[in-house]
């Protein structure tokens, strides 16, 4: 490697959009680039800690059907694909609200991982107390 950088995780500033503080999830990947120059990594210098992105998805047959018997029914849905999304009922929201919800989803996922790790730490062999 021609160059390297020092990285460290920073304390949780998970939800700047909603103002929530939440659980300490410092280990969830809030990377902060160090001051060391990184000529070979210009591609990551503008990464935001969190951002909403658009993701195109397509439901696959294997996840969309419960069994072979329903495969034909699934195929028929393809034929009416143009009207599918019109059938979807959902609460209409603004782009800003969508981004806020996205931030909440991220915070919730990281908080729940931290809580699970804490729960599991209370179970099992307590190496800390063993002599």
């Amino acid at each position: 490697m021609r160059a390297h950088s020092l990285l460290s995780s920073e304390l949780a500033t998970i939800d700047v959009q909603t103002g929530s503080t939440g659980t300490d999830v410092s280990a969830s990947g809030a990377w902060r680039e160090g001051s060391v120059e990184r000529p070979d990594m210009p591609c990551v210098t503008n990464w935001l800690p969190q951002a909403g992105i658009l993701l195109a998805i397509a439901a696959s047959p294997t996840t969309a059907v419960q069994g072979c018997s329903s495969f034909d029914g699934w195929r028929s849905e393809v034929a009416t694909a143009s009207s599918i999304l019109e059938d979807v009922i959902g609460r209409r929201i603004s782009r800003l609200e969508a981004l806020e919800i996205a931030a909440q989803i991220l915070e919730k996922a990281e908080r729940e991982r931290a809580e699970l790790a804490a729960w599991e730490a209370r179970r099992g062999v307590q190496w800390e107390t063993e002599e």
Partner: protein
Amino acid sequence: MGGATRSPVGNGGMIYEYPDLTAPLRQGDIFVGIPRIELSLERILLVDAVGEREVKWQELAGRTVQCNIIVPVRSVAAIVATQDCDAIRSRDITLCEIREFRDVERKSHDTKKPEKWKNLITQQARLNQKWFYLPPDEKVGFTEKMGVDFLVTLRVPRADLEELRCLRKGRLNGVADEHFRERIAEFFRRYPYDEWYPLNKEELAAYAQEYPDVKPFPWQEQPVARSESSPR
């Protein structure tokens, strides 16, 4: 698997080596700056020509038409979990997230003494833990003890990741990679079972004091058979 061999002790610090930019992807490669996307099946942020809508995935699960959603993403450190053969030709590469060890293994949250660290770090040789320990290394960019969280997997296109080998900060050396390979295999080979199933009634009672939510198996609800000569 052919290709360049790893030095058992590496050509760098601690348990790492530092491949150059032309080196192919290998299991154990450590990247800093991999996107980790979070999905909530309860809160899908659907985008269409009109605007945004919040729906449940259940409403979309049976549909086959492509749609667009908004998802949050964070840039994280991660290690290649895909084995070397697949890392050459597969469409996607799977990585596991790397976080500070204190947060992956919360038992170490307040650990300071080397004696205690020793106990925690070496337990992965005796227990099938959900993490793999990575010691600090300035060149890799780890200022703290780190841990691979096997529970958090990321998937990225192989060709794209090859183009971003500038994000690869290091690689496990031979000894560490051999251990990592076995550990990740063991982790995904696990199967769930209730560990208290072979306990007798008295052992189960002691177990239940520590874990009150335990539910006895039918054979554990039978009276404990005692012989006449059993000591009291």
